[in-house]
């Protein structure tokens, strides 16, 4: 229920709520009116019975005084003329004498003459008691209820106040029930016709109330996919909460735009900084051999008629300097050699052997877990390079007596290399620029190892992720297996 309610759009929720409130109000009103009608009809019936009882009590006085049964019978039958009787008489009139004995009754089968009222049936004993204790002293009539009947008793008092008897009227509730149902029907019909007008009205008002909200929602959903002017064009402008929301939304759009601009600027600045660092690194790497070579050439110039040994030494120096520059440039222009054979479990074992020396030297514990059991359609050389680079880095980072973990497994048409160490955590600032070349001057391999690794992974259309926290640094490389193999 609650989930259905929360899922429902305000476009329906608001009109629905209004309609429900209208319907509940109308229903409660009809119920109250129906109850009122019931009370009124019943009250009217009782009032009528009391009036009739009082009239009869006057008219019956002489008959009762003179013991004229028939005349009393004719008197009480007069108001009953034309009353149709079913199984249960709708109206009965009974005259009781001063002792509560039936003097005459419109329905002698039910109220036999000369029978004490108490003997008539269940409930009447109590009534008899009430009549005998109450009516002699009170000129007031009273009502009671037995089964589905309303009873009204009116005392018959002589002019001097002597209690001569009681007029007992019983009215079946079926007498006013048809009238009550008719009233109820009228109430229901009028309620329904009011609802027929109010519910559509409430529905349309509710719809109109929900429109600003739905427009705002639509606009929000279109952020990023539609131009700003279009987003705010249809927004509701008012001073209520939804109007304020709309203005907040516009302000938010402004701020979003500003932030996006700032981000763009930051990215540009970052890029420039990276290029700066890269340029500085390259310049530094080339400058060193370059400086050496220039010195060598200058020294060579100072020699008059240099002997072949000096020349040879100079050329050798230049050669090594140029080789260094070439190596640097080559490292920068990483190119995976794709022509190598498919990666096999043997390659993995080779790599393990290759790093074993370092591992032993540093007393590092190596957890090795390779699920590779058959050749994979991946070029072995670049993968070996990635693995060696990352493992040597990890061994180095783990430090003396550290732990390095290496896990290889195939997952969902991916080869996953998972290398971790428990060395020092890499600070977030460093982590950001981890794969940039020359980022960490002074480091071994001149900081190109990870750059090279990154480039190879890129060329293999894979991904590399790094995380470092809680004394665990972890590199995960995911290489897709070519599909057509």
């Amino acid at each position: 229920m609650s989930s259905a309610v929360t899922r429902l759009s305000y476009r329906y929720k608001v009109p629905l709520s209004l309609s429900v409130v209208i319907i509940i109000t109308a229903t409660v009103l009809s119920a109250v009116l129906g109850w009122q009608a019931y009370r009124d009809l019943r009250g009217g019936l009782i009032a009528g019975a009391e009036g009739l009882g009082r009239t009869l009590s006057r008219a019956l006085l002489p008959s009762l005084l003179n013991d004229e049964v028939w005349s009393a019978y004719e008197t009480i039958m007069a108001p009953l003329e034309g009353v149709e009787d079913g199984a249960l008489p709708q109206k009965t009139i009974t005259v009781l004498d001063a002792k509560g004995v039936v003097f005459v009754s419109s329905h002698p089968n039910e109220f036999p003459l000369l029978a004490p009222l108490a003997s008539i049936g269940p409930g009447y004993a109590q009534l008899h008691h009430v009549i005998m204790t109450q009516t002699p002293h009170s000129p007031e009539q009273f009502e009671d209820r037995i089964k589905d009947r309303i009873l009204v008793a009116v005392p018959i008092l002589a002019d001097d106040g002597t209690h001569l008897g009681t007029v007992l009227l019983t009215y079946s509730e079926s007498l006013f029930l048809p009238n009550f149902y008719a009233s109820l029907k009228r109430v229901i019909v009028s309620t329904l016709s009011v609802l027929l007008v109010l519910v559509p009205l409430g529905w349309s008002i509710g719809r109109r109330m929900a429109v600003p909200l739905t427009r705002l929602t639509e606009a929000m959903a279109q952020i990023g996919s539609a131009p700003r002017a279009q987003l705010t064009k249809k927004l509701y402008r008012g001073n209520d909460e939804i109007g304020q929301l709309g203005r907040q939304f516009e302000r938010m759009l402004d701020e979003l735009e500003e932030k996006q601009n700032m981000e763009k600027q930051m990215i540009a600045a970052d890029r420039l900084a990276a290029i700066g660092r890269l340029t500085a690194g390259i310049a530094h790497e080339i400058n060193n051999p370059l400086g050496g070579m220039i010195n060598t050439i200058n020294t060579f110039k100072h020699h008059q008629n240099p002997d072949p040994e000096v020349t040879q030494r100079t050329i050798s120096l230049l050669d090594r300097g140029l080789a260094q520059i070439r190596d640097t440039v080559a490292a920068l222009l990483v190119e995976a050699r794709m022509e190598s054979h498919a990666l096999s479990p043997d390659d993995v074992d080779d790599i393990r052997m290759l790093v074993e020396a370092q591992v032993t030297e540093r007393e590092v514990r190596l957890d090795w877990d390779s699920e590779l059991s058959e050749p994979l359609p991946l070029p072995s050389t670049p993968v070996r390079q990635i693995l060696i680079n990352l493992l040597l880095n990890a061994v180095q980072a783990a430090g003396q007596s550290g732990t390095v973990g290496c896990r290889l497994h195939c997952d969902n048409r991916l080869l996953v290399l998972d290398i971790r160490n428990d060395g020092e955590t890499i600070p977030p600032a460093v982590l950001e620029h981890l794969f940039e070349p020359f980022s960490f001057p002074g480091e071994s391999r001149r900081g190109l190892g990870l750059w090279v690794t990154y480039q190879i992974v890129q060329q293999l259309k894979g991904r590399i992720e790094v995380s470092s926290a809680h004394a665990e640094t972890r590199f995960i490389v995911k290489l897709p297996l070519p599909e057509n193999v």
Partner: protein
Amino acid sequence: MMKCIRRMPDSAAASEGRRRALRQAAGLLLAGLAAPVRAQSAGATIRIGTTAVILNDQVSFLDEWARYLRTQIRRPVAFVHRNSYREITELLLGDKLDFAWVCGYPYVRHRQAMRLLAVPLYQRRPLYRSYLIVASSDPRSSSFADLKGRIFAYSDPNSNSGYLVPQYEMLRAGLDPLALFQKSFFTYAHGKVVAAVAKGIAHGGAVDGYVWETLSLRNPELTRRTRIAAKSDEYGFPPLVARRSIDEAEFRGMQRVLTGMPDNPAGRSLLKQLNLDGFALPEERLFDGISKILAYVSTRQRLVS
């Protein structure tokens, strides 16, 4: 119809009874008094006293009868309706009425003040019976003794068939009419006795056999709810009487008109409505039976009226 005097000379009940009678009779009186002032007929209005007839539309019936008599006698005729024979008898004794239709029982009691005019023929005979009726839901009761401890309805204390005959029957059977029933009451009309038994107000009732039979033709639903438990011997039918001081010619004229009714289509129609065959000249000994039982009863019990 034909019921006799009410008792209770004073008391609220009497005045109540009178009021009721007045209410019922008012329209009739006005109609009866106003109508005859029509031309052709000369002389004083002939006034005929009557009590509740069994017919539902007795006002229109009496109108029609008065019209008929006026045409026949060529004198204005008015029916004077009273609720009891007591009142009718008093009016007759006071010469306020010319004729009256009374019960045989008041007739034998006031023989000296009344002159027999005519006696109706019911099933071709001037006789009728008293019926003991019970509710049709009571299949066993066949006599007064069977109604011991029940509630009983008499028609009128001055009625022969509705009071005197049942008293006689009970006494003859060795029963005490005052102690036999748990309660008894008067309805002051035979039709109402039938209604009281039919509706269960009384368990048994004494009714004019002619009235019951006529009702069974007019209102069979009512009589079907009653059953005749016993029938009495035959007695003289309630007669039409004249005041003693009546003019002889007038007396003869009325006698002629009444006995001539079967010869006239309009008269036959009226008789048919009354469920009677005609009117016969009466014989005094017709009411000897009533005299006899009245004597029998009054020596053994004080009669109510």
